[in-house]
């Protein structure tokens, strides 16, 4: 009777969560693996033919899919390379004693609580070639008018800049908590030994922040790989596929082009990529650096 009561309590407390998790996470993953082996349309999912690994072969053969992967990775690299230095500097700034720190912290964090849709919408208008605020600001300082999102060369860099604006606050918070975890006596010791401010930053602060940095790099990479709203709202994946992010490509394949089999194959590869990066992060963070 006590055993029954024990397992009853377990079922009542853990059961609902576990059930929902299995139903809405594990079943879809299995479904994705299964569907990726079939050729069918969402409009008529019962009429399907088994194609084995053909969807995967088609995916890697198709220059459009390859471009989507390339574009997404280029985007991630661009975002990481800009967000890391900028947010590090903002964090150092916030960690100091300047006035207006509270305002800067709030202002930089605003985009983090703003939805991806609103941000993408804002920047469509900010980047507008004729009436955009960015071009007006450029005119103010004598820069030429730019095409931004409608140009093959400028579309992806423009979205990278938007992402930098959007994610700086988040990365700054992470760096700031890393900075605040550095014991003050380490720096004092370096100062007593005669290190300059730059040397202390270079040889004490930055090495001690390696774990935080790895963490921020991985989070920013994963966030960038998941970009969807900018493609749908700002560019439609264009011009000429230069902003066709993987998530948008999957969406278009499944829901516009009615090829959920192929989309499932792409989703599977995408999922493995994101999982791989996250697991690599866990391994990296588990190793102890000797500082």
């Amino acid at each position: 009777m006590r055993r029954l009561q024990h397992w009853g309590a377990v079922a009542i407390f853990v059961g609902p969560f576990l059930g929902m998790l299995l139903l809405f996470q594990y079943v879809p993953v299995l479904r994705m693996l299964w569907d990726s082996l079939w050729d069918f349309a969402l409009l008529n999912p019962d009429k399907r033919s088994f194609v084995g690994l053909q969807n995967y072969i088609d995916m890697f053969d198709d220059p459009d899919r390859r471009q989507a992967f390339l574009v997404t990775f280029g985007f991630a690299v661009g975002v990481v390379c800009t967000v890391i230095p900028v947010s590090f500097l903002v964090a150092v700034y916030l960690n100091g004693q300047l006035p207006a720190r509270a305002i800067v912290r709030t202002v930089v964090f605003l985009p983090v609580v703003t939805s991806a849709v609103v941000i993408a919408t804002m920047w469509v208008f900010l980047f507008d070639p004729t009436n955009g605020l960015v071009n007006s600001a450029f005119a103010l300082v004598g820069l030429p008018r730019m095409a931004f999102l409608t140009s093959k060369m400028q579309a992806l860099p423009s979205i990278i800049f938007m992402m930098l604006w959007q994610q700086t606050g988040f990365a700054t918070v992470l760096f700031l908590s890393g900075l605040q975890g550095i014991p003050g006596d380490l720096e004092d010791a370096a100062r007593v030994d005669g290190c300059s401010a730059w040397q202390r930053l270079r040889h004490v602060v930055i090495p001690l922040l390696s774990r935080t940095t790895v963490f921020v790099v991985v989070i920013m990479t994963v966030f960038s790989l998941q970009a969807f709203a900018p493609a749908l709202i700002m560019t439609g994946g264009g011009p000429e596929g230069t902003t066709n992010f993987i998530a948008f490509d999957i969406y278009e394949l499944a829901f516009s082009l009615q090829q959920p089999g192929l989309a499932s194959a792409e989703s599977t590869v995408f999922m493995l990529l994101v999982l791989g990066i996250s697991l690599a992060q866990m391994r990296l963070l588990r190793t102890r650096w000797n500082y």
Partner: protein
Amino acid sequence: MELLKKLGTLKKAGPWLAAAAVLVVILAVFLGPYAWIVASSFKPQAEIFRDLRPISWATFIPLHPTLENFIHLFVNRGVGRALINSAIVSSCQVGFTLILCSMAAYGLTRIRFRGANIVFAIVLMTFLLPIESLMVPLFIHVSNLGLQDTLVGVFIPWIASPFGLFMLRQAFEDLPRELDEAARIDGAGHFRIFWSIVLPNVRTTLATLALVTFLFSWNAFLWPLVVLQSPRNIVVQLAIAQSVSIGQLPNWGETFAGATIATVPLIVLFVFLQRYFVRGIAMTGMKG
């Protein structure tokens, strides 16, 4: 620490000016877009364009404010409906997430049972799944369950939130077990301990989780886009996205008004509850 303070204090005039310049640039870059959008939402289209060239105070302040864009949004575009739907979806998602996660966290930390580690591993694995990779199978699955194009279908897949479980599990672990052992000796059952001892002691964490869940739910885009079709079920993010859909000539003022309505409540909430937001959002990054 000393160095960073020094970098911050920067007593000499030259560096001080540099720091002031940085401050101005940061404020302009981060606040400028918001100011422009909000100000323009109170202007007719012609005025938005006219005030852009050249940039002046008028670009960021509506000199002759009008509520026309907002009225049009509510009367002709059904944004009121979208706001109500978003509020329903977000509050249901917050409520169910808190219930499911806190019960599971109690089960995992306070009832010792065989297989708890396996359950935890099962949860751990889903932590890293990107929703972008699940949209196609999840759509087929939710359609098979008959939840396609319903508000329930929008929030139900996410209420078993691994993030919520982790957050609460941590808070429950930090709570001294002497508390509930004393209650058990007094004859309290699991429900009594859960409800009147554990939950009241983790209120801060519950509030943080509620806030973060609300934010994510309110701002969610991809899944509502996939699962909802009919206009009467539209949520606010979809309504904004529709007003800028590519290939259409957007109405600038109306779009800005929509963006303002969807964003300002969150920003007000954020400014007042900043501490919880920052803590909670920093934790969403602690995946893994």
